[in-house]
């Protein structure tokens, strides 16, 4: 397994080639280097994955940990370029490299006419390398390289079309908001090292597997600080504001970075450090509740958005909330399961949306679309599969992972608040209803309602095969991804659960088998029934409002004007930040500059100089340059001295 770092190396080479020489290379070669380097990454990950499974069948289960070079060594602080190969990192590496590869291929078509072609692939390769560093690192600080590295590539890619002011602003917003989270994340890292004297995950786990000398407060503090980092990266309330704006980037970027992979880094981090988080049941509950709240909060915003990508962005925020909900309840492997299926169907949705945007020449407002199913049948089918998967239509990927989360929530009885599980289950199914509604609202508005554009002007067209093939491949994942972890009710083996639980089983969570043995299979079936009914209700409502009674929504908007405006304006969170943080911050900085720095601090310096100067001016008349004056000074001084001496003696 001591070759997994090659998965990181290949995209780095791609970055160097395209970054240094890309502008002088033919476009075909640039695209080939970009895609092939990621393909090699995928092959390395796949090979490692297969070999790992092979070693398992031989009963050689284990974690493989190694380092290639030392990085920072000062006193007792030792950080290496070290990597950890275990089920969690393997699954993540495989998902990341596969989706990345497909998005790279798609970009060949999507970015074909862009004059920043090589820059785009260079940035995208940088992203893959950093994301793989993040998931393969064996210690917190190397993980932080990846963490900030994906943030950097996100920043560069959101602002890829830098001539647009909105894109440049959005890039900066993403970086700064993430930095706010990283501020807490860094403190979490420092506290971890200060008290636990280590940065390596396996060593930390070993140290925390037994009793420690520290009370729960320390772990609550560490866990919450680290979690704030996850809030920033995974766009949870209240640091979610950067993600919708990030849609200014090219759509493949939104699909890969802002949906499938980077934004899940926070979930991955919490799961990776599950042994630490389980030490604080308080922190876990905070995670669960914040995740649940964000899930329903973002879903409600998605109900009324009109930009095809913003709906999906809020949906991403909402789905990430689901993942945190699961992790917070101790169901870490289920969080990763949902992360895995979500990577497929959300990138599918985004890439299909990208095809739509491509097909209608850059239009993103769904109110100006409609009836596109006729012009772009393949895109339509792919989008529909994605929508069905995320809504939780039975037997598609999202159905299984979402149901697993809901079931875990229903079963959970956290010590601090035993009813938390039930509360979160209700939030979860309510979100499922909303999700089904807004996804099918989108399907109808884009593809099935009467067209709302001049056909002769726009002439929508299906996209090229190089963009369609990745779509179909992702569709396969979106349909079958869930079969890796079937619920006990199906009486078929759950492959993913036990595999992941090798690393994620520690802590309060019960194992999958235990969970299912303890549960009443009938109850599981009933719960499943409830969620299916609600999902179908959501789909039905969308069908009714946007198909049967097309046009009725305008009346509804007028009837519920106030709540509609609240949702349309995203609860005014951005405005709140502007009023409470950005504007006062800028005013404060200006005041510090003008009043404190120029006025007081520099003023004092100049005052001293002025006083000295004024004193000099005062004495200046004495220096006349005439000898007679000086002679007079000397003479009178001598006389005065004599008198003084005489007085003193006398």
């Amino acid at each position: 397994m001591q070759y997994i770092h090659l998965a990181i190396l290949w995209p780095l080479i791609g970055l160097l080639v395209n970054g240094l020489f890309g502008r002088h290379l033919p476009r075909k070669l640039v695209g080939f280097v970009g895609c092939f380097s990621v393909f090699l990454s995928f092959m390395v990950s796949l090979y490692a994955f297969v070999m790992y499974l092979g070693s398992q069948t031989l009963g050689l289960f284990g974690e493989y940990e190694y380092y290639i070079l030392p990085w920072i060594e000062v006193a007792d602080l030792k950080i290496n370029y070290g990597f950890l190969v275990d089920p969690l990192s393997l699954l993540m590496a495989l998902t990341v490299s596969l989706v990345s590869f497909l998005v790279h291929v798609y970009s060949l078509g999507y970015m074909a006419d862009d004059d920043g072609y090589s820059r785009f692939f260079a940035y995208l390769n940088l992203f893959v390398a950093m994301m793989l560093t993040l998931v393969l690192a064996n210690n917190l600080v190397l993980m932080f390289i990846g963490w900030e590295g994906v943030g950097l590539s996100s920043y560069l890619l959101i602002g890829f079309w830098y001539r647009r002011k909105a894109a440049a602003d959005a890039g900066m917003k993403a970086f700064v908001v993430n930095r706010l989270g990283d501020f807490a994340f860094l403190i979490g890292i420092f506290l971890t090292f200060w008290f636990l004297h280590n940065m390596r995950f396996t060593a930390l786990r070993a140290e925390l597997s037994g009793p420690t000398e520290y009370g729960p407060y320390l772990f609550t503090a560490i866990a919450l600080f680290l979690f704030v980092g996850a809030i920033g990266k995974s766009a949870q309330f209240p640091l979610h504001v950067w993600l919708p704006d990030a849609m200014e980037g090219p759509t493949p970027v939104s699909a890969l970075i802002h949906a499938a992979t980077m934004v899940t880094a926070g979930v991955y981090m919490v799961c990776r450090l599950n042994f630490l988080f389980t030490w604080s049941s308080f922190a876990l509950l905070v995670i669960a509740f914040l995740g649940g709240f964000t899930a329903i909060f973002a879903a409600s915003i998605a109900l009324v958005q009109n930009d095809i990508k913003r709906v999906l962005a809020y949906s991403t925020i909402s789905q990430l909330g689901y993942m945190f909900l699961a992790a917070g309840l101790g169901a870490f492997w289920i969080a990763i399961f949902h992360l895995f299926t979500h990577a497929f169907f959300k990138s599918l949705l985004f890439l299909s949306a990208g095809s739509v945007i491509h097909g209608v020449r850059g239009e993103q407002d769904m109110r100006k679309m409609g009836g596109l199913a006729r012009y772009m049948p393949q895109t339509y089918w792919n989008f529909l599969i994605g929508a069905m998967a995320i809504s939780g239509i039975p037997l598609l990927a999202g159905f299984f992972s979402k149901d697993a989360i809901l079931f875990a929530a229903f079963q959970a009885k956290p010590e601090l608040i035993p009813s938390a599980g039930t509360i979160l289950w209700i939030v979860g199914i309510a979100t499922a209803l909303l999700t089904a509604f807004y996804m099918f609202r989108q399907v109808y508005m884009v593809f099935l309602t009467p067209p709302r554009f001049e056909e002769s002007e726009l002439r929508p067209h299906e996209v090229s095969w190089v963009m369609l093939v990745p779509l179909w491949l992702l569709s396969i994942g979106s349909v079958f991804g869930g079969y890796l972890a079937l619920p006990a009710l199906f009486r078929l083996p759950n492959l993913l659960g036990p595999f992941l639980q090798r690393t994620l089983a520690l802590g309060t969570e019960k194992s999958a088998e235990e969970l299912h043995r303890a549960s009443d299979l009938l109850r599981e079936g009933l719960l499943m029934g409830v969620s299916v009914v609600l999902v179908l209700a959501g789909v039905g409502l969308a069908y009714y409002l946007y198909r049967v009674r097309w046009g009725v929504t305008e009346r509804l908007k007028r009837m519920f004007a106030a709540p509609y405006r609240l949702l349309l304006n995203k609860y005014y969170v951005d405005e709140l930040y502007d009023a409470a943080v950005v504007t006062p911050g800028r005013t404060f900085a200006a005041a510090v500059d003008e009043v404190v720095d120029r006025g007081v601090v520099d003023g004092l310096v100049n005052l001293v100089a002025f006083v000295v100067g004024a004193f000099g001016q005062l004495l200046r008349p004495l220096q006349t340059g005439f000898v007679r004056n000086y002679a007079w000074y000397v003479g009178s001084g001598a006389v005065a001295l004599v008198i003084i001496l005489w007085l003193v003696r006398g």
Partner: protein
Amino acid sequence: MKEFLAGAPILSIVVFLPLAGAAIMALIPSDRTRFHRWFALWISVATFLLALLLLPGVSSFGEFSHQERYLWIPQLGINYHLGVDGISVVLLLFSSLDLVLFYVFWEGVLIPMYLLIGIWGSGRRIYAAMKFVLYTVVGSFLMLVAIIGLYVYSSHYGVGTFDFLRLREISLPGNLQTWFFLAFGLAFAIKVPIFPFHTWLPDAHTEAPTAGSVLLAGVLLKMGTYGLIRFSIGLFPEAAVRFAPLMMGLGVIGIIYGALVCVAQRDLKRLVAYSSVAHMGFVVLGLFAFNVQGEVGAVIQMVNHGVSTGALFLLVGMLYARRHTRELGAFGGLAQPMPVYFNFFLIVMLSSVGLPALNGFVGEFLILMGGIQADWLLGGIAVFGVVLAAVYLLYMFKQVFFGPCANPANRQLRDLSLREVAVLVPLVLIIFWIGLFPRPCLRVIEPAVKSTVQRVQQHIYRTYESSTGSIGGSLLALDIRAYSLEGGSEN
């Protein structure tokens, strides 16, 4: 080769080679500009290469090596005494071990800087040059007084001396340490500069020509922090510990305050100048954390600041040479006409932001790690500086490079020339080298820092035994610091 080197006074050659170069150039007619340019360049390169030769000889036990000692004014015990350890050698190169010699060099640096700003500066150059020199000199006079005081005090123990190594062995009474510490400290605080003594810096930086700004950032400011660690902490450890909370506090104020002022700047050079205040705040915080991580981080950060801020000044200078303005508002959309420039600026900017895998991160990470362990509240506030750094640097970057390239004057801009690229490439390589493979640097610095820290801690225990707990507040933290010194977990 090695034997040859062992006997040669390399350190002296390194110190005086540039001076000799200057003397030779003064004798050559000034209209032969070509000769002057190349000669100056080669002298610098030769000096640098010779300095590199010092590296292998540096002691790994924190002692001084390459010592040279000649009598200078024996009547007063003033010697010509040079020597380097791990701290001075990475800073290329502060080597005086005699306080009077140090003082002479310290003041000597002012002369060329004064002329650089005063003659080749822009705008209010006379004001800036005067402010710079007068402000620094005021601080240094107090240092001179303290140096003489040290001599007088040391004469109680036999012959009076200005020798650093001998003075270090004398233990001064507490109140004397306080006065000496304050006198030295003020000189260094102005030079660093530590808030609130920083206002000469933006003026000097802004008015200085590019080369002057780079020298200021790369060398002059380092004299202050080097002085702090070598003399203030080295000679007056007890006072240093007593003042540590204050110094750390001022460092943290510098970080936050400098960053806030940066946010309000609309002049590129002023912005970079104030970012210096913030960065040097980090150094001060690390120096007075009194643990190995903080202090090593501080020394690395001195190097980083020189490289990154120096490079930023170079980059701003290149832009100024083209557009003759430094107003942020004058730019926008430069990524389009100047893609190479864009990439260099991006890397340097990110290094200043403290992005992991670039040099700034290594320094800041170690400083904050040490700072938090020394004082969790101050350290925690300092971490917030990384957020603010992103705010002002990204804002500047956005204003210069992004948005539509509307101004026709900007659309015509030439990208970097080969010469400019050649200047920047080594700096970028250093940025990556320290960021990715800092270990060689760390290994040189660590022993020297360790011996300084241990020395401080010895003094602390001595006072701890005799004192009635007057400095109890900082002692609690110091126990933890001492603990972190000893531990050595496997990783």
